């Protein structure tokens, strides 16, 4: 495996830093005097600048540097954090992202504008020059002819403790030319007072070299401001191009050396260029291409999937074998596979917070664009989901949040008239139930105008004028292709993407979408998304001769039904379970099984959240790690199954779609109740 390209790593990292910066700024907007937030934003700016320069993103580094300088005033308490500042830095952040993505573009005007805004926001700041990576003189030192120098230096006592070895200075000086070293031991205390970790020596060095004074000073770079150092050109030396025969190094003088370009340390411009050249072709690649690690995870996931299938074959063979050794190995293998699978899952899981956080910026921008005050709240951010699933949810959610802000929430006057708080609320929430995560977007706006939906649907030919239609079905029309309730296409929601696209996206994740709305009170769009797409824990059951898998997270309990109970319940579709009526479905009937039923029928109670349904099967075989294979196009209308899997003996078992079976059961129950 080859090493990943550091430039790619930088891009990923830059994206994270920009994300942190954005979150920090958005928080800061609400808590303007929170020092930790100011520090966090500053740190992100600072790191971005530093790493940017390391990887040849000079424009980014220069631009970020100016932002950092401005922001530093806030950090130092010289300027106050204001909403204007936050907004200016947010826009500057967007520009930084552009610079990461396209470092070669021409951005001078935009940068000038952004920096002017920043400067205005930290009023009183010294004028910020426009970013220019080429800034900084490249003063080439003139090489000198050999000179003899007399160098005297002494170091502080704690030099050794702080990791400096004075011998290394002598070595470096010796490497420059002919050298004579004399140690000055005059400060050495008597043995009983000597601290073995302290330094008491000083040195006098006579050096003949063609290197410049700056080069000699460079040797002492790190200790310059703590030490005494004199460097004198000997009177008898051939020529002395250096100005001034003697110079005592002052505390502030040498500091410049550390940063000033010298022949040994070329100017940043010069050092950065080669890196830039080599990186160039890669820079044109989109940021997506750096997500190689995620793809590798997918590969790994596939292998684990295969392994699980092989393992279940082994298990089946072992189960019928009397070889204890084989059985032990098989059990061990099962445990390892199961652990491996869990590890694999956890690797791919990320908290929903990473998804929700993106919408804070969106809402910030939506406030500006709609002129509505919007408060975004979130809950259940720690709910975890597969990374791929989360990424594929990002766009549909953008659309839902936009919709809520644009169509859902009323303008301030209308809200005031309705007696609602001025700021509209959009709530993002996530929770896990069984093997699914339910993500919902709720607004407290006007709700969906049924009359308008009807008019639109009739106009679009989706329903016949005057048809009676249940409220829930009417709302579902919104998900039909070509449906849009906004009479004029606004900048926000009407981007040619309708709710049908959202629905498609969710269904491609094996999820479902649901809409509830109360006129005048608001709407909720709920997305039910399976936790993962690849492997689930299943309960293997037999109905007639067929094997089926019930996703284990949905299973509540398994009960054996006695023959009497079985007979008693014939003709009815629910059973009393601990004083609750549980509707059930006889899978034998549903699947039209013709073989003789087992004498003792079993009921598996499944649930999604609050709704329970019993599934009556012939035999419960047991736990089965299930690698999900999706069904072919031909079978995509089959509602009772969500996929298929291959069993250890190579035969196929269908995976029951619990959500659908539950709604079927609930319908049955409702019908029966209606009759009763």
């Amino acid at each position: 495996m080859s090493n990943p390209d550091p430039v790619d790593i930088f891009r990923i990292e830059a994206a994270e830093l920009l994300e942190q910066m954005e979150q920090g700024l958005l928080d800061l907007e609400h808590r303007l005097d929170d020092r930790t937030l100011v520090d966090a934003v500053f740190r992100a700016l600072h790191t971005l600048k530093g790493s940017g320069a390391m990887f040849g993103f000079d424009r980014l580094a220069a631009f970020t540097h100016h932002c950092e300088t401005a922001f530093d005033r806030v950090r130092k308490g010289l300027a106050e954090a204001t909403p204007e500042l936050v907004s200016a830095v947010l826009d500057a952040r967007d520009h930084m992202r552009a610079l990461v993505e396209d470092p070669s573009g021409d951005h001078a005007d935009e940068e000038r504008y952004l920096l002017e805004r920043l400067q205005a926001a930290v009023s009183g700041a010294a004028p910020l020059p426009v970013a220019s990576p080429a800034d900084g003189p490249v003063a080439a030192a003139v090489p000198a002819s050999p000179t003899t120098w007399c160098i005297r230096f002494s170091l502080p006592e704690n030099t050794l403790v702080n990791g400096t070895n004075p011998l290394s200075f002598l070595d470096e000086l010796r490497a420059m030319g002919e050298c004579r070293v004399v140690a000055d031991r005059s400060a050495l205390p008597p043995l009983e007072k000597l601290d073995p970790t302290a330094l008491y020596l000083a040195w006098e060095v006579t050096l003949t070299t063609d290197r410049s004074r700056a080069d000699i000073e460079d040797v002492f770079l790190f200790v310059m401001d703590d030490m005494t150092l004199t460097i004198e050109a000997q009177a008898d030396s051939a020529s002395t191009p250096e100005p001034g025969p003697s110079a005592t190094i002052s505390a502030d003088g040498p500091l410049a050396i550390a940063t000033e370009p010298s022949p040994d340390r070329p100017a940043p411009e010069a050092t950065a260029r080669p890196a830039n050249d080599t990186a160039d072709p890669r820079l044109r690649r989109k940021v997506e291409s750096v997500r190689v690690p995620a793809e590798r995870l997918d590969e790994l996931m596939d292998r684990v999937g295969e392994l699980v299938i092989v393992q279940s074959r082994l298990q089946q063979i072992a189960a019928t074998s009397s070889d204890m050794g084989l059985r032990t190995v098989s059990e061990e293998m099962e445990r390892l596979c199961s652990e491996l699978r869990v590890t694999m899952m956890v690797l791919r899981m990320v908290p929903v917070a990473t998804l929700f956080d993106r919408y804070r910026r969106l809402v910030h921008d939506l406030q500006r664009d709609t002129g509505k005050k919007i408060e975004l709240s979130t809950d259940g951010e720690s709910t975890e989901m597969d990374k791929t699933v989360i990424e594929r949810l990002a766009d549909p959610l953008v659309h839902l949040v936009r919709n809520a802000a644009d169509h859902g929430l009323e303008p301030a006057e209308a809200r005031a008239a309705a007696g609602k708080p001025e700021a509209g609320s959009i709530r993002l929430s996530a929770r896990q139930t069984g093997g699914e995560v339910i993500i919902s977007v709720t607004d407290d706006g006007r709700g969906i105008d049924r009359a308008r939906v009807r008019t639109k649907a009739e106009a679009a030919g989706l329903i016949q004028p005057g048809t009676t239609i249940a409220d829930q079905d009417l709302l579902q029309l919104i998900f039909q292709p070509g449906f849009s309730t906004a009479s004029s296409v606004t900048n926000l929601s009407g981007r040619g993407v309708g709710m049908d696209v959202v629905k498609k996206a969710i269904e491609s994740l094996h999820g479902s979408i649901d809409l509830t709305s109360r006129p005048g009170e608001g709407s909720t769009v709920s997305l039910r998304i399976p936790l993962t797409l690849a492997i689930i824990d299943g309960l293997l059951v037999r109905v007639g001769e067929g094997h089926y898998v019930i996703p284990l997270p949905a299973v509540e309990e398994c009960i054996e039904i006695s023959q009497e109970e079985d007979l008693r319940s014939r003709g009815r579709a629910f059973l009393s379970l601990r004083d609750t009526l549980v509707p059930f479905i006889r899978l034998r009937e549903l699947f039209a099984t013709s073989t003789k039923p087992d004498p003792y029928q079993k009921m598996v109670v499944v649930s999604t959240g609050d709704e329970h349904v019993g599934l009556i099967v012939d035999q419960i075989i047991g736990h089965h790690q299930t690698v999900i294979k999706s069904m072919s196009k031909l079978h995509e209308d089959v509602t009772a199954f969500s996929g298929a899997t291959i069993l250890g003996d190579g035969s196929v078992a269908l995976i029951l779609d619990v959500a659908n079976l539950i709604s079927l059961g609930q319908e049955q129950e409702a019908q029966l109740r209606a009759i009763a």
Partner: protein
Amino acid sequence: MTASILTVDDSMSVRMTTRIALTGAGYKVTEAVDGLDGLNKARATRFDVVITDLNMPNMDGLRMIEEFRRLPNQIGVPILFLTTESDAALKGRAKAAGATGWLVKPFEPDQLVRLVQKVLAK
């Protein structure tokens, strides 16, 4: 014997570049992601050189350097810090905390290697 170097930086890209440069020059590199991590690693093993960023979450470089200097197993180990600005005050503070030297970002791999050679006692 191969000198072993501890690099402490919250930026993965910087850690990676330093690692490539240093392992390329034949050093053994241990990485830490912030001051706290660095300190914990230093408690367990003695290093020949430490290279650290200053601006980091959890524990910043200055704090780490101070704490590091109190570790009995790390007396006299050179500590280099990476800094982006040529801010005299910051350097002064890092020195006061016990740092040996610094390197201004951006830097070239050779510069880093030369610097490590500089502070590594023969």
